[in-house]
């Protein structure tokens, strides 16, 4: 036998002859693992309970080996699915008309293009420009715009409520309000062109915000004074986190009307706008900041407690 063949033969023998694996151990008894449940207030550790008073981060959740317990996996997957569901739902073409709003569309033609071409989402298509010229009231103080943004789910959820409260609050303050419009495949800056076409003093777009885990229903609002194409982020003021658990639509509508009022009084918006005179009207609204912590709720339960889909 050659040297190599001898070596290979010896190796096989040393690796336990015919079968390289020893027989498995006897079948063990496998007890139920301890319950690891999220986020049951009864069962969580004192650390998790204390932490929950200060943060909505998922801490004190324990581990299985180095991984998550099954319950944590399901909660996480449900939160992720809610966010993805919100992003990938398109606003139906006839939704605006059904709400009695003037329907507009950006230059975007499908949902993938909407995500990939923010530049097209900032401009109206030709038909929308014509429709706006023909049907919308001109020269108003405030032009309200409802839009899908990154969550059509949020737009269809509390969009109409926010729009109604905002319009009423503006009218209560004595401002003239433009024809309510609803824009599809819209980015924030679309408010510039819409406001410019109708010659509004302030343009206000209310749109679905980029979903976070478990939260696809939040709306944001961006307001700009003297809207025209070419305005930048520094020219705008924004309010985020508009939903039942954050700023509810009624409260947000009033705050946004106060913000628009400040713009009309000071004839500016964005960085130069002095918010001090309306501080009490704004309450704890985060203008230009991050969303307030959203309490986590348990999303998954096995059984038939909810509505059937």
């Amino acid at each position: 036998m050659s040297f190599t063949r001898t070596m290979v033969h010896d190796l096989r023998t040393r690796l336990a002859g015919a079968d390289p694996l020893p027989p498995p151990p006897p079948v063990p008894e496998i007890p139920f693992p301890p319950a690891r449940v999220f986020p049951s207030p009864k069962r969580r550790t004192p650390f998790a309970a204390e932490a929950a008073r200060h943060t909505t981060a998922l801490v004190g959740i324990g581990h299985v080996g180095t991984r998550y317990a099954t319950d944590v996996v399901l909660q996480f997957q449900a939160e992720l699915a809610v966010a993805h569901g919100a992003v990938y739902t398109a606003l139906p073409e006839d939704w605006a008309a059904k709400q009695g709003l003037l329907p507009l569309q950006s230059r975007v033609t499908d949902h993938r293009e909407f995500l990939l071409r923010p530049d097209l989402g900032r401009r109206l298509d030709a038909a929308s420009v014509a429709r706006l010229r023909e049907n919308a009231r001109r020269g108003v103080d405030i032009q309200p715009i409802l839009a899908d943004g990154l969550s059509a789910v949020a737009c269809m959820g509390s969009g109409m409520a926010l729009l109604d409260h905002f319009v009423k609050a503006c009218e209560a303050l004595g401002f003239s309000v433009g024809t309510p419009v609803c824009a599809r495949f819209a980015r924030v800056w679309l408010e510039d062109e819409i406001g410019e076409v109708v010659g509004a003093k302030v343009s206000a777009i209310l749109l679905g915000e980029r979903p976070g885990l478990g939260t696809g229903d939040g709306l944001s609002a961006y307001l700009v004074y003297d809207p025209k194409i070419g305005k930048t982020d520094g020219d705008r003021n924004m309010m985020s986190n508009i939903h039942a658990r954050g700023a509810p639509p009624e409260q947000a509508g009033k705050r946004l009307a106060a913000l628009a009022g400040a713009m009309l009084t000071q004839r500016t918006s964005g960085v130069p706008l002095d918010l001090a005179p309306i501080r009490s009207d704004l309450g704890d609204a985060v203008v230009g900041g991050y969303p307030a912590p959203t309490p986590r709720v348990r999303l998954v339960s096995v059984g038939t407690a909810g509505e059937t889909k």
Partner: protein
Amino acid sequence: MNLSATIRGVVYRFGSVKEVLAKANSPKSGDDLAGVSAREPVERVAARAVLSEITLAELRQHPVVPYELDELTRMVEDTLDQAAFDAVKHLSVGQFREWLLDTRTTGPTMRAIAPGLTPEMAAATCKLMSNMDLMVVGAKAQVVVRANNTLGLPGRLSSRLQPNHPTDDVEGILYSAREGLSYGCGDAVIGVNPATDTPESTAQILRHLNDLCVRNAIPTQCCVLSHVTVQMKALDLGCPMDLMFQSLSGSEKGNRAFGISVALIDEAYDKMRRLTSNRGPNVMYFETGQGSALSSDAHHGADQVTLEARCYGFARRYKPFLVNTVVGFIGPEYLEDGPQITRAGLEDHFMGKLLGLPMGCDACFTYHARMSQDELETLKVLLGAAGCTYLMSLPVGDDIMLNYQSTSFHDIPSVRGLLGKRPAPEFDAWLTERGILDGCKPGERFGDPTVLR
């Protein structure tokens, strides 16, 4: 210099080195948005063929942003190490790729030539490499840095602990930090993105983080990632600061949009070296990410991989302790889906390491990008195998302030376990002493945040 190639009888002509670099790039939605990408797959290969024969000397003569227009180009050109450049300048990009892949080319050799490479050379080579090429060379690179502990040693994988909170609630930040430490995370840095960008708030968070480290004798670094000018003012308030942070862009115009310049970062670096609480010698922390230049219309018609490499050319001037790309944060208009985000993570790690940086990666996605959690978990293992210096770590990978999905506290010990990697040695010893680790395995107190006071 030949700028045309023929494939199946079709001649592809390119107008400039910049165009060749852009069209040779792997598909990226950001390059489509910028209008600089190849029109079809065969044209992409033709561009790569042309690029493979361009020499490194020619690349030095053709930076993607002209010397006269851009201070980053000038800084790189004026400070390039001539001896290191002379050693490789005759190689074409294709030959340089082969030299890097050759097993006789070791980490120390790569370190020797790094100061002679321009960012465009690193980017060009990247475009001729597959994902596994990028990993093989990345894993060979050797970049070791030291602050309060030592990062980048062979067989080590570190993590930034990122206990962000949307209202800067210090107690909330500390609960997340303690949880993360109990999973063996945080050896690169405990780094907080603040919601409020003021010197007082920055100083306050830093004091609390520093107290946590002192109270528990943790050998690591703390950082609050506010704007560099805010951190400089916080230093004047006399707070402890182990690392000074700033986001970088790949052109002078892009950096202007970030409110920074070479002169400003020079000043910050000088101040930090005098006033830092860290034992050194490395005191800076930078973040980058493909697409940031285009987002401020500062890309000068160049592709996002080349511009990303130029961030590293900027960063290396300051011998940073940490540099990481935040690879999926910018959104699908720049990196559309899982394959693009994965590719970008491996590219950035390779380019950063090649240019001599202790490259880490925030492997992440926003919820409007088409990347699944499974793809994201896969990317972390790929980065670990490629020798990535550090990943991020958050509770369940969920940033409750910035609303995106990154690496979790549980992922770090999992990737370490899969790849047989350990934390930074000083931190490793501390974890073992606290019972959090038991050799390579989770210890008795693993995942028990009450082990920390």
